[in-house]
């Protein structure tokens, strides 16, 4: 009897908590009813798929994706936006009348789970392709498996394996090259040293390029692996600024989960004007710009994609898709990555002649080249069976200004301090991958 009472009380308490938390939930926005993504593609307008405006009703084509979702970092935004793009395509004739069915799984950094989900997608769910994968570790876990099945994955990467194996092709450039871009921006502005800080689990890969830039410029450089979550932001920021010295450069490589603590500490300690600040892409968004007006014009962020509000065709389509199909996803780089991943996948699907199978789709993916998108400085490509793919290697520098993100330097190639970049650029000219013709 007593135990029943206890069970009941426990259940009631839990139910009460859930009700309380439901009250905190933010509601979903209303969707608009305008026809999105329809019409004829032109130099000033982008459309979804064929742009017919008619719903696709044939047999679905299955695509799959796996995104990391851990308390604190949510990469499923990328997959969810890809799903929104696919919905737009489905409302515009689909792929020759066939709608796309997108199966998105999330993983919690458990390698067994990552491998199991990959197997499920390929062998049980029988998808023809994998699109939109983003994780701290999934590239490393699954690239050999995908290769053995003939799959080429279009995603957004963080890990070295995402940019160093034949299986993955990313719409972004990853922390290593983004940090190099930030380092170049600081060197252009006369930084006397280059200090770079990244999460310790990716630091060796993410920071190596910055050290090479420092060496080439003849200034001191040092990498600081930081343990997440950051509990002592004040010490960390002090250490970075002290190491940089007066007029030196400090590059932060963190997402909006961790960067605010460091930036807040810099403001509190009065260190904002002591060094020149740089960063990789993740903190380039309007929210951060509004929070950190103290860094206006002082934080030079390397941004892997174009500005969402620049009025170019793909960015406009991005905003339109957001409004109709993904109103709860605020405009951000993750959304852009999902947009591009889906766009490239659709392009590959549309180019398949004959039956759409795993073999034919992935072959079409590998054949992709000179894919124009106004979100990137240069056309995107896969380039067939290259040993690795780094198609996004030219981008812009932005900064905060009055609560917005504004462009400072346009379309500068990432410095070829890595042999992989030199080789990639050779391939680009040799195979005519992104010259736009």
């Amino acid at each position, binding site marked *: 009897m007593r*135990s029943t009472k*206890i*069970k009941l009380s*426990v*259940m009631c308490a*839990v139910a009460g908590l859930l009700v309380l938390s439901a009250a905190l939930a933010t509601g979903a926005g209303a969707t608009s009813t305008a026809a999105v993504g329809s019409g004829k593609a032109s130099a000033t307008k982008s459309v979804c798929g064929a742009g017919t405006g008619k719903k696709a009703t044939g047999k679905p084509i299955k695509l799959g994706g796996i995104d990391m*979702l851990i*308390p604190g970092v949510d990469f499923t935004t990328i997959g969810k936006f890809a799903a929104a793009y696919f919905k737009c395509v489905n409302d515009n004739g689909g792929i020759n009348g066939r709608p796309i069915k997108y199966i998105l*799984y*999330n*993983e*919690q*950094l*458990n*390698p*067994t*789970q990552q*491998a*199991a*989900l*990959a*197997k*499920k997608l390929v*062998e*049980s769910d029988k998808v023809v392709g994998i699109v939109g994968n983003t994780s*701290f*570790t999934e590239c*490393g*876990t699954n690239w*050999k498996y995908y290769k053995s099945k003939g799959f080429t994955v279009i995603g957004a990467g963080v890990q*070295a*394996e995402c940019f*160093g*194996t*034949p299986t993955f092709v990313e719409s972004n450039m990853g922390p290593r090259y983004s940090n190099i871009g930030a380092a170049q921006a600081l060197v252009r502005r006369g930084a006397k040293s280059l200090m770079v800080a990244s999460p*310790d*689990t990716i630091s*060796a*890969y993410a920071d*190596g390029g910055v050290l090479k830039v420092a060496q080439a410029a003849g200034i001191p450089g040092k990498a600081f*692996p930081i*343990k997440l979550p950051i509990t002592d932001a004040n010490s960390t920021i002090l250490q970075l600024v002290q190491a940089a010295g007066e007029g030196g450069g400090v590059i932060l490589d963190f997402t909006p989960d961790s960067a605010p603590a460091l930036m807040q500490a810099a403001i509190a300690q009065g260190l904002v004007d002591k060094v020149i600040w740089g960063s990789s892409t993740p903190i380039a968004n309007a929210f951060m710009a509004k929070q950190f007006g103290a860094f206006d014009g002082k934080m030079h962020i390397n941004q892997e994609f174009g500005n969402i509000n620049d009025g170019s065709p793909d960015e406009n389509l991005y905003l339109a898709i957001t409004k109709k199909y993904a109103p709860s996803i605020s405009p951000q780089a993750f959304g852009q990555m999902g947009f591009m991943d889906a766009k490239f996948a659709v392009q590959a699907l549309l180019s398949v002649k004959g039956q759409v199978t795993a073999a034919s789709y992935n072959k079409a993916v590998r054949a992709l080249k000179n894919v124009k998108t106004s979100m990137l400085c240069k056309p995107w490509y896969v380039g067939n069976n290259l*040993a*690795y793919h780094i198609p996004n290697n030219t981008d812009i520098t932005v900064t905060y200004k009055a609560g917005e993100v504004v462009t400072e330097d346009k379309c500068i190639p990432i410095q070829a301090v890595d042999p992989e970049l030199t080789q990639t650029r050779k391939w680009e000219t040799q195979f005519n991958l992104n010259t736009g013709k």
Partner: protein
Amino acid sequence: MLGLTGSPAELARGVIGRSAIIVAFLGVALFVVPAVLGGDWIKTLTAVAIYAVVAAGLVTLYGRVGMISLGQIALLAIGTWTATRISYAADLPFPILLLVTGAITCGVGVLIGLPALRLSGLYLALITLMAAGAVNVVLTTINFPNGGHGFTGRTSTPDLSGLQPVGRPGIAGGDTAYYRYTIVVCALMFLLIAAHFASKPGRAWASIRESEPAALATGVNIVRYKLWAFALASFTTGVAGGLLAAQLGQPTAFGFPTQDSLTLLAAALIGGIYSLWGAVIAGAFSQLAPFLFQAQWGIDPNFLLIIFGVGLLQVLLTAPRGIVVQMPKDIANLGKLGAHLFRKVTGGSRSPE
């Protein structure tokens, strides 16, 4: 558990009965499951077996001796790290690799356990948690070996395509074959632990758990037996770590967060901390449940945390012996209730209750 009451015939039947269940379970695991379930299940169930062994260490330490270790995942990480480092450095046959890994992890576990033995109860639990926290910091700093030289075996310019992951045994390269290999090795670990329970160490541990002064009075060397328990739990966890290294191929520090030690203990308590079958259930909870939730049923994995918490409270308050004891009881009760209702329905009209 030992079932020491009853006539020799009853005892014999008890032992045969339990062995039959174990053999049947293994048979299903080894032969029926791979034939029926797909590759994704096989990978997940391999992890279930591995974490079941880790949970068995918890059963040994807490269920048998009364010591809580909140650092088992840290030991698992050490085992995985050791196996990875060794496999890059030397080309050992896989069983030898497992034994060496188990031995090294055993050494580390004893090293940590020795000074901690002076503490008891809550302090022992918390010091193991602190040790786990420290190990986690070291692990995320030095990361896992990836083909480099030196003690840490880590290079900042790894050869990605040519990288040899931790090699699986020659006879068990594929996922299904490796799954069977893992089941066999894990069953051996369980056998090792069960053998301890059934013999002198098991009796010494039981007396220590009941009352240390009484154990001392009967001449039990408490320090030696406590250390033995630590050594056993660390050895089996180390072997599990070796198995995990080959399952993952290229392990990373992300796989072993400190809080996993707490959630594994929660899973072990829910499964049943006094029984080795409870350890199997714990392994299923910690590895199979997320897969089921996510891939099979499409439920938000955060629900699992909530269920864990509620389950833990439930178990602690109403069923301290865990699911493994409670579920058969509940099913038996349900069966009795069903039989009673059936009788009422078919047994004619009695006076209504």
